[in-house]
């Protein structure tokens, strides 16, 4: 099997995204956001990362199943 790089990318970014989003929620209004000009940058980055990660995973699964179909086809 050829290892589609979108799997590791999607997986890594989904994990990090979810982690950072939860962390963003947990630290809402915390003191440390003074440095990021009062913006809860964790929450926003986390959400964006998760979307990106899931998108990559979806694309990888889609092309994977397409490749599987193509493999089965000639045998018929």
């Amino acid at each position: 099997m050829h290892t589609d790089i979108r799997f590791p990318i999607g997986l890594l970014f989904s994990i990090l995204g979810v982690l950072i989003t939860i962390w963003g929620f947990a630290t809402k209004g915390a003191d440390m956001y003074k440095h990021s000009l009062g913006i809860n940058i964790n929450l926003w980055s986390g959400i964006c990362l998760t979307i990106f990660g899931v998108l990559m995973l979806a694309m990888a699964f889609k092309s994977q199943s397409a490749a599987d179909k193509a493999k089965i086809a000639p045998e018929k």
Partner: protein
Amino acid sequence: MHIQVGAIDYAIMAIYVIFVLGIGWVLKRSMKTSSDFLTSGKSIPAWITGLAFISTNLGALEVIGMGASGAKYGITTCHFYWVGAIPAMVFLGVFMMPFYYGSKARSVPEYLKLRFNEKTRGFNAITFAIMTIFASGISMFAMAKLMEICHLFRFLHLSPEWYFLFCILVSGLIVLGYTFLGGLTSAIYNEVLQFFLIVAGFVPLVYLGLKDAGGWSGVQAGLQSVARNATIIAGSAKNYAPDAWTRSWAHMGSPSGNPMGVEWFGLIFGLGFVLSFGYWCTNFLVVQRAMAAKSMSAARNTPLIGAIPKMFIPILVILPGMIAIALTAHGGVSGFSIPLDTKHGGLDYNNTIPAMLLHYLPSGVLGLGLTALMASFMSGMAGNVTAFNTVWTYDIYQSYIKPGQSDKHYLRMGHMATIFGIIVSMGAAYMARNFNNIMDFLQLIFAFVNAPLFATFLLGMFWKRATGNAAFVGLISGTLGAAVHHGLTQPAGAASLVKGGWLGKVVYTYPSEMAQNFWTALIAWTICFAVTIIISMITKRTKTDDDLRGLVYSLTPKIKQTDIPWYSQPAMLGTIILAVAVVLNIIFW
């Protein structure tokens, strides 16, 4: 400085390291031969190699060096992209790749052997090996420095010197782990991963920095006071016109008008032509990424696909540097300024980006930013180390030391070379400590190695009359020429012999390190070019037209790719990319 690296940040870094090692481990199961390990068995799709192609160079050089240069030289730093990298990448994809890929050479030195002779290849293999060691040493230095600033291992309570050594050892070990596990494929996969990490970590940084400075107009206002008070703020020798930091061409009329200290001629020919073409077209480290592509058209498109994101990377890496110096002058809401260099005086430019990360990013995203930096240093090291072990194994060991051994033997040698390369890099990391902007150091090395080599390639690929002996002598004289020039000149305020003037007498002092580098490159190139032509005229050709088929432009049948639509033909893609680059130059004129 406020530093809070929390548990969540460690967790993010740990997840990344586990991932990287995991990828290496998964890929290792599909690595059977030395060719798999060293050149990926030519099986990777174009968009992956394309991103890897630019990520290789998105290491310490780009992330720390470009940020440092953005602060030190302002928007003129963008010339590294819009005059330098982009045209060179297009040239590589459209004109040079057919020879590299078509010749079936496994490395750049091997191409030299096919085109010229054994000697030329040997010389290039050795200088290249030395260069990769320096380059990976620079990444290692940057990584150790980052760990130092973040106090990542503060629980060890080591003295600063031991701490630095410890950081270097740690970064060496991580790279060793992942190159060892997966070879080039693993390195390429991680480079792509790292590309996205950098984007994820730097977008919030640029956003917050811009907001703090009061938007682009706030940055411009800050940069104006930087330019007018450059002696105080940027530690330069004189003050400049108010828009010297924000206009890329307007002050290129004379070296004294812009902070980089170069004029248009040195810029276009030194940087644009010699250094950039030399780097992108002959540096095996980057060319190797394209050579790993799965087909000729994928190989040609690799640098072209890479060029598209490359044009916009300045927003992520140069802009923060400019924001940082603007804030240092004006002060933002949050009071950020570039830290001072305690050892050499003035601002510590290398520290610009790490300091910004620590200042703006709260725990959480901070971990992401630090991971991105760490990833880029690791890929910088790993990329150089994989290039080093390919060249060492094929071009030095197999060719001169022990030819005719089993494939298994060379695979083991590849592993040994990896370890050896990392150990020597540690020494080079200590040398890099002498430069307050690592970009200056890197360009210096390129001026010695890549600049003359590009002349050799140009003649080799486009002039069938160029002979092997001429190429060899030309290459040596070019490198010597660079050495003599470097030995006789100095940048203003140089204290260390690494920066030049080591021949005892300084005949010329350049306004900046970068100007000196451009001219070193220009001189090396010109000498190599002239000497190769002259000697070619008086020596006999040893290779017939038949030998050179597929290696020289005029003797190679033109490739017609009818299987791909017109808009993704290399020439068409190249033209579009160049047009966009011209527009960027005009916008920021």
